[in-house]
């Protein structure tokens, strides 16, 4: 049998969503960003809402998200994505607006914008990639860097006394009445990928139903920043990150779990 006999539409079991461009991802091998991008685009594709979707890219590793996501996108200043998304949703209340942000963007420089967009219950989706480090600028300490974790700006490990505790921003915003849905997921195994996609779908369905703000945290790895192989990074994540940032739903249908 020739290979061309196999490549036929009736034999297809999986394909890349057309909402991902053909541009090669600029992320490190083993990074969770690619999967998170793909899941978000699959959900938008499957819901048939691309014509009404506007994404907001952050500053950080995913600053070029618009190179990979084949949808209308606006690139925001560092930390300001929730304010940019507010400007869009307020003037286009029928649209689907989402931000895609990392931990430095969302939980450090953009804390005020994050909390206030959540508190106003803007009818948007926030996708929050938490890998406990600043990847793009070369592995500096993030607000979510774990205690004792070595980074280029905490070279002897994060010391709580000087540097504060890792910020559980997700738990923080879950307490705000304007926030309708809060969940923490990961994308490092097939099982987790499927759950994460379901969570993203729920978030966009909430937008459709005008329920207010939906917040999906994805705990991810940064093998380059953590200085590990992808596999080591995933194991380290399971052993260390998940105990401090436990996976699962935190707020569903406007009610805390």
């Amino acid at each position: 049998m020739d290979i061309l006999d196999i490549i036929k539409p009736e034999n297809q079991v999986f394909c890349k969503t057309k909402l991902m461009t053909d541009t090669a991802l600029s992320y490190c091998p083993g990074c969770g960003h690619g999967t998170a991008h793909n899941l978000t685009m699959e959900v938008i594709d499957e819901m048939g809402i691309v014509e009404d979707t506007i994404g907001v890219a952050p500053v950080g590793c995913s600053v070029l998200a618009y190179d990979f996501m084949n949808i209308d996108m606006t690139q925001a200043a560092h930390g300001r994505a929730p304010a940019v998304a507010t400007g869009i949703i307020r003037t286009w209340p029928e649209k689907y607006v989402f931000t895609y942000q990392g931990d430095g963007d969302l939980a450090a420089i953009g804390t005020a914008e994050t909390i206030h967009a959540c508190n106003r219950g803007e009818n948007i989706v926030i996708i929050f990639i938490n890998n406990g480090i600043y990847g793009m600028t070369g592995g500096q300490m993030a607000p979510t860097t774990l205690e004792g974790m070595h980074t280029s700006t905490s070279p002897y490990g994060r010391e709580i006394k000087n540097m504060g505790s890792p910020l559980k921003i997700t738990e923080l915003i879950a307490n705000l009445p304007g926030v309708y849905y809060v969940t923490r997921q990961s994308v490092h195994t097939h099982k987790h990928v499927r759950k994460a996609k379901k969570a993203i779908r729920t978030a966009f369905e909430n937008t459709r139903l005008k329920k207010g703000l939906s917040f999906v945290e994805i705990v991810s790895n940064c093998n380059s920043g953590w200085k590990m192989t992808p596999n080591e990074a995933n194991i380290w994540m399971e052993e260390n990150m998940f105990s401090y940032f436990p996976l699962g739903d935190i707020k569903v249908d406007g009610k805390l779990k």
Partner: protein
Amino acid sequence: MSELKLMKGNEALAEAAIRAGVDAYFGYPITPQSEVIEYLMTERPELRTGMVVLQAESEVAAINMVYGAASTGKKVMTSSSSPGISLKQEGISYMAGAELPAVIVNVVRGGPGLGTIQPSQADYFQSVKGGGHGDYKLYVLAPASVQEMSDFVTDAFDIAFKYRAPVLILSDGLIGQMMEKVVLKDQVERISDKDLIKMNGYWATTGKKDRERNIITSLDLQSEKMEARVHRLQKKYVKMELEDLRYETIDCEDADYLIVAYGSSARISQKAVELARKKGIKVGLLRPITLFPFPKKQLFDLANQVKGILSVELNAGQMVEDVKLAVEHKVPVEHFGRTGGIIHTPEEVLEALEQKIINHGHFRHHKTRESSIL
């Protein structure tokens, strides 16, 4: 129907925004411009035209809300006063880079720092020399009356969409807080989403439909692409200088001396011109209405006619540098202005003209020439 009212400058601007069919206003309170958002909140423009008004958590958030709405092609604005405008500079730079139309209003107070809440024109440098980071300029309109606070809203949006660039209305506490007669324009309907997509759909992020995706960004990691972007911006600024320069001359035809002043200082200086002419001194006034583009050629030409020029500004001497550049040492150019929130009186302006230009003009002229030779 146009309507005659007695209004504060800030209120006239807010009312003009509703009537101009603005889609959204995002702001944060700060003296002396809080009347803008107060007026808008009181007027309920969401019922009058569907205009969105939102009090943001900070000036930083407000300008980024403007960025978001502007990136979808909407007609959107914000206003603040000096310290707040400093906070907005990041967003303004991003908008210039990402080529987004928007209107920003600065009702200037004295600085630096928290400064004073009283009127000032000390944000001239910030307004015309960039303000935020990077190679960009803003088209800057300087209203000198309550009427212009109203009229310039429409003018500013026309320019913003003509060039797809942020436009600054540079007012001050005096113009913002004073009341004058104002003829308000007729209500313009807001553009429907359908028409907006027809007009701006080729660049705005309105959702990918029947076209390739649109991206709004100011980032070009490839240097050649970034340089091309910078050149594209510079071309706009050249075009603004050729097509959209605005200024006003008062009593310049026979003038022996010239005062250059904008905004509130232009009003005060106009009275100084009246007082001077009563004394038999022929003084004229050049009022730049746009601070960028700046009336360089007009100043250069007037320098052939007058014996000296006084730049009157409520600051320690900022526009005077541009006046000097424009007249290329042909005549002496001096600065006069009070600071700290003190407003110079017409009498003080005339006295400064007499002391700095009329009585010492020749001597200083000589000195300037020598120093320029050295």
